[in-house]
């Protein structure tokens, strides 16, 4: 008992000693400007530290020969394909993985159970029935009928949206393997179940098919992921190898069809008149030529031909294949000139899309090809098609589905018009990211969506400049995303519901802001505020050209942007892409100083620390601020040289009158203290306003925060009195709280009062 008490006493004494020492613990490198060595993978011979493909970079290819039959009565697709897979990797592959993305829609799909749910305290009867009294689900998913090689059945195992093919022998490095699959599936009605492909039933009973993910597709095997066999849960899109496609598609004879690649039997499937118009369109560089008119489409729609015909398409170096087909389609096309080739910009739409679609769709395609090519590389495919499909916005090589439907009487709001132009720019733009710069969407949604949304912003703005009539009533094209102020709401939101950009799309909370808006804005800020156009544009183009027709990883992008510009951006990637930090920089304090020869108490103490006990032995200049005990009112407005004989004599002793005439003697001296409640270090953009009404904008580099992440001060020597200081005056940085951005502290009206004042009377 005694011993225990003694021990207790002993420990408590020890603890007290520990406390009184108050020596802070050491720490590892937490500097926000440290390099991203821990976050990024180690460079290697496949992917270099410069962000370029390495000398041993490889990618495997998958070529497809397919025969597809679309049954317009049953909405069943029956298909067969022969896949030729080439293993360019240095590894022997024991098995192959094939993707069965349609299986996300199978009856017992785990994707239906991927989210948490509960029982609401109150339910509407309908919603209760929907949640707890379910009817027979849609019978979606691939029905695999056979998998064969050399006439023999191949062993295969289906794990939901993935199918493993077990080859008789491993596929050696450099070798090619050919096998075939037969399958069928029930096409979903995309207007009901929100699928990325499917059919819409028009009021007259005819259907418009927008068909994709319709065939078993090879997965990507590479140095980063091995086999990319992360299942398709619905949010993370696709990762696909490049290859050549030959696809025969059989549909009703009165359908108009188009898809990825060139139609090789045009003469069989176009009428003579359509053929003539197509030839005209190939030479029409300034406006579209209508290939099938609305009247013709409406006539065909009134019939219902049962006979079929086969369209033959051929595409080279694409990562996917999609097509559209309907007897209700109108089509127009125009040529776009590039140094290497002419590209056909094609719009396909049912009468429901008019008058909006014939007016704007092809214009938007042409603008997209122009702007994106300028910032990346010339469009390398022979065509770019925009198809009108209700509620859609989905991209495939050379073809995409887009929304934007006028009211039944043909009128449409600005919102429908701009929504339509924007989605066309976005989806056609996806040809560059990820169809050609082929990033892994399954893991990194932002790599294509973020870059594409950034390019979309630049394209929309150019569209607005080129077609002022189209944006009548606006100063510039009203882009939804891109401007820094538009991401503030997201970035200041509840941290519990924000994920870093560097998250898998399945795990992000608000994918639209996470993978589209925020990365697009970050790149815009990088271009406008951090790097400048010249350095950014060169680096961005370098990335696009290095990785066109290849598979980049996030690091390849981050590294190239630095490598090609000599701008260290690890701090920027860390803050904007790897964390959920936000920007908030403000003014903490502004102090004015006055110069004097008289020894101040503060000066005396400072000198004493350096061993100077008698200040009169050294020549020194002292400063006081208005709170100093030495401050006197007569110091105000006095010239610096008048206030300090020491300074005046120093100048006279060390400089000739000629030299002195060139020396700028400031009249005002300030210390400006900036604070940074936000986690992201950013350049401090400051506007100084002077008593004479003039203004000066200064940018301190982000690196000003590298030794103190919370607070930094700047000394300002000025000829003129500063009357106002504003941080980020043009809202360039997505600063989430501008209440602390000005001095003297502006009594700012809140959003509510501002609105109320504007709308008075």
């Amino acid at each position, binding site marked *: 008992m005694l011993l225990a008490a003694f021990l207790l006493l002993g420990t408590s004494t020890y603890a007290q000693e520990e406390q009184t020492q108050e020596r802070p613990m050491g720490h590892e490198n937490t500097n926000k400007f440290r390099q991203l060595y821990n976050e990024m993978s180690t460079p290697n011979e496949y992917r270099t530290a410069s962000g370029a493909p390495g000398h041993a970079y490889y990618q495997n290819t998958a070529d497809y020969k397919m025969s597809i039959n679309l049954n317009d009565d049953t909405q069943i697709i029956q298909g067969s394909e022969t896949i030729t897979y080439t293993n360019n990797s240095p590894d022997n592959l024991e098995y192959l993985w094939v993707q069965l993305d349609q299986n*996300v829609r199978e009856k017992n*799909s785990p*994707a*239906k159970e991927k*989210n*948490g*749910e*509960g029982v*609401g*305290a109150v*339910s*509407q009867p*309908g*919603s209760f029935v*929907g*949640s707890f009294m*379910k009817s027979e689900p*849609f019978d979606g998913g691939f029905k695999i009928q056979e998998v064969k090689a050399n006439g023999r059945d191949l062993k295969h195992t289906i794990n939901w949206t993935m199918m493993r093919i077990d080859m008789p022998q491993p596929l050696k490095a450099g070798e090619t393997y050919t096998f075939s699959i037969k399958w069928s599936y029930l096409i979903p009605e*995309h207007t*009901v*179940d*929100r699928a990325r492909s499917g059919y819409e039933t028009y009021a007259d009973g005819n259907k418009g098919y927008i068909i994709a993910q319709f065939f078993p597709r090879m997965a990507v095997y590479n140095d980063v992921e091995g086999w990319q066999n992360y299942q398709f*849960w*619905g*949010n993370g899109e696709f990762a696909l190898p490049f290859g050549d496609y030959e696809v025969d598609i059989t549909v009703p004879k009165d359908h108009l069809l188009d898809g990825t690649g060139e139609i090789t039997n045009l003469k069989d499937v176009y009428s003579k008149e359509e053929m003539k118009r197509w030839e005209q369109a190939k030479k029409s560089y300034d406006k579209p030529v209508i290939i099938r008119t609305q009247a013709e489409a409406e006539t065909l729609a009134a019939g219902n031909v049962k006979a079929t015909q086969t369209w033959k398409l051929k595409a080279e170096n694409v990562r996917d294949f999609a097509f559209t087909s309907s007897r209700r389609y109108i089509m127009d096309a125009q040529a776009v000139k590039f140094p290497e080739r002419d590209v056909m910009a094609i719009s396909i739409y049912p009468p429901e899309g008019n008058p909006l679609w014939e007016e704007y769709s092809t214009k938007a395609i042409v603008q997209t090809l122009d702007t994106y090519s300028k910032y990346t590389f010339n469009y390398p495919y022979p065509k770019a098609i925009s198809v009108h499909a*209700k*509620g859609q*916005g*989905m*991209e495939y090589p050379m073809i995409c589905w887009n*929304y*934007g*439907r006028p009211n039944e009487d043909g009128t449409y*709001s*600005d919102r429908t018009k701009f*929504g339509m132009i924007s*989605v066309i720019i*976005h*989806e056609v733009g*996806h040809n560059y990211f990820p169809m050609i710069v082929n990033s892994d969407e399954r893991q990194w949604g932002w790599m294509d*969506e973020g870059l594409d949304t950034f390019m979309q912003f630049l394209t929309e703005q150019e569209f607005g400049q080129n077609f002022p009539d189209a944006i009548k009533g606006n100063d510039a094209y*009203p882009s939804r995303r891109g401007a820094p102020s*538009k991401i503030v*709401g997201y970035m200041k*939101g*509840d941290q519990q*519901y924000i994920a870093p950009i560097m998250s898998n799309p399945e*795990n*992000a*909370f*608000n*994918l*639209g802001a996470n993978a*589209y808006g925020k990365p697009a804005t970050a790149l815009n800020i990088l271009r406008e505020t951090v790097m400048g156009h010249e350095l950014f544009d060169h680096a961005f183009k370098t990335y696009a050209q290095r990785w066109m027709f290849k598979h980049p990883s996030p690091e390849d992008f981050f590294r190239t942007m630095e490598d090609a510009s000599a701008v260290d951006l690890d701090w920027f990637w860390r803050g904007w892409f790897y964390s959920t930090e936000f920007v908030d920089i403000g003014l903490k304090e502004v102090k004015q100083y006055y110069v004097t020869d008289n020894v101040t108490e503060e000066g005396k103490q400072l000198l004493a620390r350096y061993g100077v006990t008698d200040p009169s032995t050294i020549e020194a200049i002292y400063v006081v601020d208005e709170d100093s005990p030495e401050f006197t009112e007569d110091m105000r407005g006095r010239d610096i040289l008048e206030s300090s004989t020491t300074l005046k004599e120093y100048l006279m002793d060390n400089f000739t009158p000629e030299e002195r005439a060139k020396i700028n003697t400031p009249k005002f001296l300030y210390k400006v203290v900036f604070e940074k409640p936000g986690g992201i270090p950013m350049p401090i953009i400051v506007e100084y306003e002077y008593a004479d009404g003039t203004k000066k904008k200064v940018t301190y580099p982000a690196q000003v925060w590298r030794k103190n992440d919370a607070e930094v001060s700047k000394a300002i020597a000025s000829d003129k009195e500063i009357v106002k200081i504003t941080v980020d005056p043009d809202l360039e940085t997505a600063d989430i709280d501008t209440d602390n951005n000005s001095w003297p502290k502006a009594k700012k009206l*809140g*959003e*509510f*009062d501002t*609105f*109320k004042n504007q709308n008075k009377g």
Partner: protein
Amino acid sequence: MSYGIFIENDKARFRESVTNPCNFTMKNIILLLLVAPLMMAVSIHKYYLSVTDLNYNAEAQSIQIVTRIFYDDLEAVIQERYDTDIIVDATSDQKALDNYLIKYFQKKMLITINGEQRALRFVGKKYEDDFVVCYIEVPDVKAIKTFEIESTVLMDVFPDQKNMVHTTIGERKKSFLLTRANAKGLLNFTK
């Protein structure tokens, strides 16, 4: 886990599918809600979420509310409840629209101060990107001892709707994520 606490539960979908009123039979909504997450969308995503900033302005003695709601969600609700023909944009009859909005908010955004439920004053609205921004006020609020907000805005049509409410009352800042299962936020200033 209570129903829909996580934003990832939010059903993404396209805007256009809801602007057409005939799309909004109850059956379709159920289908949409059930099936949407697996097939979801594609390029333009969105979520059933509104964001409201609520501040007490002591000087003006008023509670000032700025609420941002996706225009198409609001349109679906107004069409289903009041007027199948009305379009929520600048081209339609603003007076009629405002009347519906006033009626709707009075019912769905309940604010109780010091135990007394207070009337809302609809100050106005504006259109901003994909949102309708509504300005609402509770006038004559002299002191706040207890504060309660119950927001079931849009939950009548979208059971998964979440309403984020950021409140600033005096020095106290508090955010609530209101859902159907938990639609009330409470603050007590007497403790």
